[in-house]
């Protein structure tokens, strides 16, 4: 398969870019942030997302979704990276939708997938516990209790957890990891919104003797790891796409600034030292784009070692986006440091996306382990 978007995918990209430019440009983020919006995310926008088919991009058509694949989810994620739009896309449309589509019971799917696709429900996946992404070391426990389970533990970095209609909680059971669908209103669930540096949304979730029924289990008891890993890999590739979107957009603004800003009697883009750095960054971004598209395509193709392609993409996109926003602020000079200019917002968002679902170091470690060294 060629490493370029198909015609349909290109149309989707144009639709997503167009929709976001009109309905959720960066001013949308600023408005939510500066008004100290209680949710930090717009439910109206989210429903419009549903109507456009973006919220249900990977959800099967029989459940009201668009029935598309990873590449298409990545296209939407990249567009969100360009406009920095806060939305429950990663948590709800990618991670939760994928877990439920893969491992959910018919009842669970019927109950939630159409509502996610319509942008009516927001679901959140609760995996991380410490400051770093370490999904192999989940310590939240679920003990058998009555007809179901009793959950105890603390989760952090739960995307949009404070506005979630349901949580998917990964907990350790006797012989593995199990995924639970938890109503946030259940006794013992405490949710604290954590306002993040990028004005996107996350929460800390504390579970104290939270009693859930047996039908809260998604898939098999002790058998949640595969669905979790599958969803996270899709999530990682989409986050990588968003990193490329954010990095590339910061780069585009910077090149424009280089062309127009004058110092020492000429456009600063005439200075060869900046030209070379910009050309280097361009190169890195193109290479990151290839890695991200390849990872998405491989997820769709279900090939062996797609997880490694995902790690390459997440690590590479992360490092490159980091370079892009650093160069963007530096080349913008003083104004790049002001809240009034947008480049700082890209720097903040890239920092968060880099931490999300494993930073470049986490993925480099996966590459090294898989390479037997």
């Amino acid at each position: 398969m060629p490493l370029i978007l198909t015609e349909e995918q290109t149309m989707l990209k144009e639709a997503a870019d167009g929709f976001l430019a009109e309905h959720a440009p960066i001013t949308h983020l600023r408005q939510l942030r500066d008004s100290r919006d209680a949710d930090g995310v717009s439910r109206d926008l989210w429903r419009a997302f549903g109507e456009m088919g973006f919220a249900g991009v990977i959800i099967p058509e029989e459940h009201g979704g668009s029935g598309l694949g990873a590449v298409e989810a990545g296209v939407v994620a990249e567009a969100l990276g360009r406009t920095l739009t806060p939305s429950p896309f990663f948590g709800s449309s990618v991670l939760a939708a994928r877990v439920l589509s893969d491992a959910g019971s018919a009842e669970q799917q019927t109950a939630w997938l159409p509502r996610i696709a319509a942008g009516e429900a927001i679901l959140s996946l609760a995996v991380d516990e410490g400051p770093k992404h370490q999904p192999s070391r989940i310590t939240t426990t679920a003990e058998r209790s009555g007809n179901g389970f009793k959950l105890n533990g603390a989760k952090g970095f739960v995307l949009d957890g404070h506005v979630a209609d349901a949580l998917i909680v990964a907990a350790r059971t006797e012989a593995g990891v199990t995924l639970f669908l938890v109503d946030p209103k259940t006794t013992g669930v405490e949710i604290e919104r954590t306002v993040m540096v990028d004005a996107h949304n996350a929460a800390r979730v504390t579970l104290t003797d939270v009693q859930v029924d047996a039908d809260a289990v998604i898939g098999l008891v002790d058998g949640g790891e595969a669905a979790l890993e599958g969803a996270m890999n899709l999530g990682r590739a989409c986050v990588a796409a968003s990193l490329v979107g954010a990095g590339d957009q910061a780069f585009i603004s910077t090149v424009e600034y280089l062309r127009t800003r004058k110092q020492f009697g000429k456009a600063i883009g005439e200075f060869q030292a900046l030209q070379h750095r910009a050309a280097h960054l361009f190169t890195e971004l193109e290479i990151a784009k290839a890695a991200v598209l390849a990872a998405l395509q491989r997820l769709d193709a279900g090939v062996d070692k797609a997880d490694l392609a995902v790690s390459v993409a997440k690590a590479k996109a992360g490092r490159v986006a980091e370079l892009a926003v650093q160069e963007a602020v530096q080349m913008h000079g003083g104004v790049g440091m002001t809240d009034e200019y947008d480049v700082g917002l890209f720097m903040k968002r890239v920092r968060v996306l880099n931490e999300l679902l494993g930073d470049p170091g986490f993925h480099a470690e996966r590459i090294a382990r898989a390479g037997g060294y």
Partner: protein
Amino acid sequence: MTDLETFRAETRAWLEANCPAECRGPLENDEDRVWGGRNATFKTPAHRRWMEVMGERGWTAPEWPTEYGGGGLSREQAKVLASEMRRIDAQSPLSSFGIWMLGPALLQFGTEEQKTRFLPPIVRGEIRWCQGYSEPGAGSDLAGLQTRAEDRGDHWIVNGQKVWTSYADQADWIFCLVRTDPDAPKHLGISFVLFDMATPGVTTRPITLISGKSPFCETFFDNVRVEKENLVGTLNRGWDVAKALLAHERTMIGAMGDMGRPMGQVAVDSLGLDDSGRLDEPMLRAKIAELEIDVAAFRLSMERVGDQVKAKQVSPAIASMLKYYGSELNKRRHELAMAAGGSDALEWESDRSRGGTPAREWLRTKANSIEGGTSEVQLNILAKHLLQLPGA
């Protein structure tokens, strides 16, 4: 007992007697600093007293001559004073751009009258100064500034705009670069002048940074009257004064790279060790070790440059080297601190993150390689003055 030993003993006794308990121990946060000035605020009355007793003795500016209110100490005595203050963890009695920047320039370029008039109030913390250099159109190209001063006989009328004026909204006076000859080549038509921020026509507006609120302001001059007696140095040769002052500022900013706890410890606190006793994030660990090597080497380099300067073995342009490397290093350091902090460090408002301190500090460091001359400007200076490359 040598003279220096006597001085140490006396200083120790005096500090013990005069440094209030409230003024010992680390600052809790930057806002607790004492800046002095007409509208000075103090965390406690003790902080005011501490500023005043030190100011009276001239020890807020220990090496300045006593005739201008300074401490009149030798370099060795000043080192003793500093070490004795460190011994009891005494806070700085006064933070002041007057002491750090304007004072040295006045001592070098000012008239006797200017020194007598302006230096003592600086030492005593009575007048707070700010710096008017950068303009919206003239950032790296500082000499491209447009703020103009029209000659009106015994005074100038100043019109224009400055930006990145630290604490302009709280300062009493400003030292400022203005264009006094619009027809001269750009470095030759600039003058260095002083005026009161309360002069009619001066307004300020704070700038919000990506890290949040900031001390920086935009400052506007609308027909501001400036007396000619407040010209420092020669008319149209203000660039020489500015350069001397910038070298000072650069060394200060460069020294940032030297701050804080060892990064390895910061990371261990956040992430813990693995079974082999190594930081539980191998890739991050490798980057931290490289950083720590660079930090250690940079610290030694600052020391060496100090010794070279003292031995007159090096050009003053070497300040650009410290500025460049120190600020890039500090940025790298905070990138790693953010990685070590993980998602905890991404919180922006929580108590847990002390109001987003790690993230705000990280973002703040991004200005290090811009303020006081960008990294690119420093590299240009090095290429020209130290490497003597053609056309640099």
